[in-house]
């Protein structure tokens, strides 16, 4: 890739991150505080009110679930109005539109990685967990997750050009999606009763992230690889869809 283009993508990503978190008074602190508070709410609701069982490691279970789902929902939500947000550039100069997608997703991925770092610090401070070299499996899993979110983003941003209430509909889909993925409920249920759910890349990735980080076990390689391949395919199809259908982005938005 040409050097100035790479620099531009990095600059876009930095600006996007800055805009998202420095806008509020709490600043970057908000980026950590938000998932933290959500984890607390779910933890107390589920371990004291609903299940009435006190398993402290449930916090860690929730932590990985909420930050992973949070990454997906944040990325896709941001993507819907991406063309509109970048209109001020798009109408003045012909650029590769994929630059905007790569930089936006890089910025949300960065926030996710910082959350993951917090997870490791938190778990080491309070839980004395066992980690081993299996942790390197997180690399392909996170790449898969990134590609999946990127692919869906291509579709959403392009569809928004023609369907201006897509953001409302998507917020419902995200809300429903939250419950179809084992963010809160026990993922062993997936293996026992709903194995087909593992064909959803997010479920496959989330299950494997927990295998590695919570139980220090080998990931389920079959579904990990399948998830990565599906995600790569969705990213490619999304890219083609975006290139073919976004020619009129400037005049329609």
């Amino acid at each position, binding site marked *: 890739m040409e050097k100035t283009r790479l620099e531009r993508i990095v600059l876009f990503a930095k600006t996007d991150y800055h805009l998202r978190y420095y806008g509020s008074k709490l600043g970057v602190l908000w980026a950590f505080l938000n998932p933290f508070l959500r984890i607390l709410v779910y933890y107390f609701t589920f371990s004291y009110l609903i299940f009435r069982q006190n398993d402290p490691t449930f916090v860690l279970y929730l932590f990985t679930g909420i930050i992973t789902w949070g990454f997906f929902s944040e990325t896709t939500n941001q993507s819907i109005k991406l063309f509109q947000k970048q209109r001020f550039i798009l109408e003045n*100069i012909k650029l590769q539109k994929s630059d905007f997608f790569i930089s936006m997703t890089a910025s949300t991925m960065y926030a996710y990685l910082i959350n993951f770092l917090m997870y490791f610090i938190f778990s080491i401070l309070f839980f004395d967990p066992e980690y081993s070299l299996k942790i390197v499996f997180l690399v392909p899993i996170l790449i898969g997750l990134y590609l999946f979110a990127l692919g869906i983003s291509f579709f959403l941003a392009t569809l928004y050009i023609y369907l201006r209430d897509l953001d409302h509909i998507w917020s419902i889909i995200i809300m429903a999606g939250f419950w179809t993925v084992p963010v809160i409920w026990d993922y062993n249920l997936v293996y026992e009763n709903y194995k087909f759910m593992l064909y959803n890349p997010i479920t496959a990735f989330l299950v494997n992230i927990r295998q590695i980080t919570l139980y220090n076990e080998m990931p389920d390689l079959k579904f990990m690889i399948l998830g990565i391949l599906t995600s790569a395919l969705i990213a490619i199809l999304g890219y083609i869809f975006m290139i073919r259908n976004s020619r009129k982005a400037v005049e329609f938005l």
Partner: protein
Amino acid sequence: MKEDIAIKVENVSKTFVQHNRGKTIRDRLLSVMKSRNVRKIKALDAIDFEIKKGEFFGIIGHNGSGKSTLISILNQVVPPDKGGKVTVNGTSIRLALGMGFNKELTARQNIMINASVLGMPMEKIKLEIGKIIEFAELEDYIDIPVKYYSSGMRSKLMFSIAVNAKADIFLMDEFFGGVGDKKYKEKADQVFHDRLIKGKTIVHVSHNPGTIEKYCDRVLLLEKGKMVKLGTPDEVLELF
């Protein structure tokens, strides 16, 4: 395409289609039973011309004549109707005052983004950002969001960024020379002349005959999307 041609426009038309099906999922679902009612607006009709390299080319016309649509098509950010073709030799950017900013970002961030989009390498941006700020006379306000700027300040900022832009072809949409008070205007006019337009291909769109007469080599007169006349400023302005 011949070497000395910067932009070649062949049989370019642009039709904007409005239909009653709506732009939301809700409207589309609700209008399934309705008959399809399409309204077409022809913004440009069979435009043909060539712009030579290094030429200062003017496009003049009243409001709604299709000037801005034509600029967007020349810039290749809006596609022409089927059958039309635009060939551009080199890179192009559109300059318009008060545009091209993300209002939530500070002026400094906007300079970085714009300069990067306009093709400047990061090293050079860091080196020249001081000059850009100084030229815009905005030293004291550079780290506040652009949304708090007056329109005059925005224009100065955009102008200052633009004179540092790198492109082969500049498409100027009512973007011209100085803004602000008389002293600044004189300084800006000078820089505009020396740095921006000298030796470059310029397409200048305006409804103001003054600047067209002063700078343009050739002028195209548009009226309701049609080419009325292409010729020297004297010939064309007579009809305007």
